[in-house]
């Protein structure tokens, strides 16, 4: 389930990045690459597990869904930290100068 949710997040952020491109003031390119990196790795993990162990390709239960949500929240948190540290709008600088 977390693979589907991360892939969905990757597709949505890429679409938003493309709409805003070539400008990337808010580092949406970074966010989409974070999601795509995880999506690719989990896809490989799922395929190899399916080929070697069999069973269901996607886990569709509450635990897997909660993990998917946690992964998205964590990725957004990482992106926001990078955004606040780089501060492209200079908001933090202005707040600290007050």
């Amino acid at each position, binding site marked *: 389930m*977390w693979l589907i949710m*991360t892939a969905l997040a990757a597709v949505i952020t890429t679409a938003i*990045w493309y709409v805003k*491109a*070539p*400008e*990337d003031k808010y*580092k949406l*390119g*970074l966010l*989409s*690459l*974070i*999601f*795509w*990196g*995880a999506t*690719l*790795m*989990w*896809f*490989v*993990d799922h395929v*190899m*597990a399916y080929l070697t162990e069999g069973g269901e390709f996607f886990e569709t239960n509450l635990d897997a869904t909660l*993990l998917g949500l*946690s*992964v998205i929240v*964590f*990725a957004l948190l*990482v992106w926001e930290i990078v955004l606040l540290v780089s501060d492209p709008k200079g908001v933090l600088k202005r707040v600290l100068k007050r």
Partner: protein
Amino acid sequence: MACFLVPAGEAIVTTVVQKVVENREKKAGERTKNTGVNWSRRLSWLNKLLWGGTILLALEHVWHGEVVPWPPFLTAMENPADVAPMLHEMATIGGAMAITVTIVWLIIVLIAELKAKAMPEVKAKPASGGG
């Protein structure tokens, strides 16, 4: 078990490579003529894919109790019988993850090259993408 450590290792290496390339480009004032995208920027795409995947997979391993915040950090290391399967998983699944991400990145770079070649002239300010 610890498959994400292989892409993490690659990410460390490519981050160092990116920094070295970036410094060389700054010194030389180099910019790829045909694309407007230099190699340090291309490597930054790979780094973001690898680090992003590694961070989120690390969270998944914590969630599943395979990584803990106390030594030896990997639960598979606590039992000697689990070490060999862990190393096997790192070699197979971890290796496949790293190779797949690298191949996808190479395809992205190739598409960027082909797109740039199709353009008559690249403006001085390159198009933004991937941060």
